[in-house]
């Protein structure tokens, strides 16, 4: 990364697992470096303008925040156990999220890229399926639809 060849690796504890404000993906990435990590993988789950043929206006994410934060922390810890990671961070939006905004971001860094990719997928899969977070889609025709399908299964 150009910005931060010698920056201090991001302290994972400083990244809140949930945020009611837009996720600052760029700032998270700019910090996610480690001198021993040759591979950094970032996933950004973004709100699409359509789903199942319907025009999407915006989403709203409801969460049981205390449990969701605890679960994301545990998923990150499990990822560190399973993969040799230098960095693993994840952050999920709550509240209203408009088309094009990021709903969830996961960043992993490892010495080798296969593990950075695998850990990244492991983390996002578990967050989507386990964390106490629910999406409600609001469509252009005024209808809404609760979760079930994630934006990018």
């Amino acid at each position, binding site marked *: 990364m150009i910005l931060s060849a010698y920056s201090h690796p991001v302290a994972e504890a400083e990244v809140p697992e949930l945020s009611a404000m837009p996720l600052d993906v760029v700032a998270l990435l700019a910090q996610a470096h480690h001198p021993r990590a040759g591979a950094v993988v970032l996933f950004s*789950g973004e709100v699409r303008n359509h789903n199942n043929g319907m025009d999407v206006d915006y989403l709203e*994410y*409801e*969460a*049981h925040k*205390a*449990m*969701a934060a*605890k679960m994301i922390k545990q998923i990150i810890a499990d990822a560190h156990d399973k993969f040799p990671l230098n960095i693993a961070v994840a952050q*999920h939006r709550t509240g209203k999220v408009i088309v094009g905004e990021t*709903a*969830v971001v996961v960043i992993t860094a490892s010495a080798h890229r296969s593990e950075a990719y695998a850990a990244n997928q492991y983390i*996002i899969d578990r*967050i*989507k*399926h*386990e*964390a*106490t*977070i*629910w*999406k*409600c889609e609001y469509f252009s025709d005024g209808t809404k639809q*609760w*979760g*079930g*399908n*994630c*934006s*990018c299964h």
Partner: protein
Amino acid sequence: MKIQVFAVLKDYFDKEFELSDTVTSVAALQQHLTQLNTEATGILKLCRFAVHNEFVDQNYTLTNNDTICIFPPSSGG
């Protein structure tokens, strides 16, 4: 006991309500809620339950001071 429901469950129940009836287990609570609103039968079968921010299973013994959270399947991301 106090019941809090989340996400799509709010289409079937109040977001938060007191239950004066004496249900003593998660299984009994699930059964009781199904009777309150039969349309929620299917979704309730998929739900997870938590007390004091910990998931609990069907056999968990409920007391009148508990707050029980009911979670439909996650749909984050």
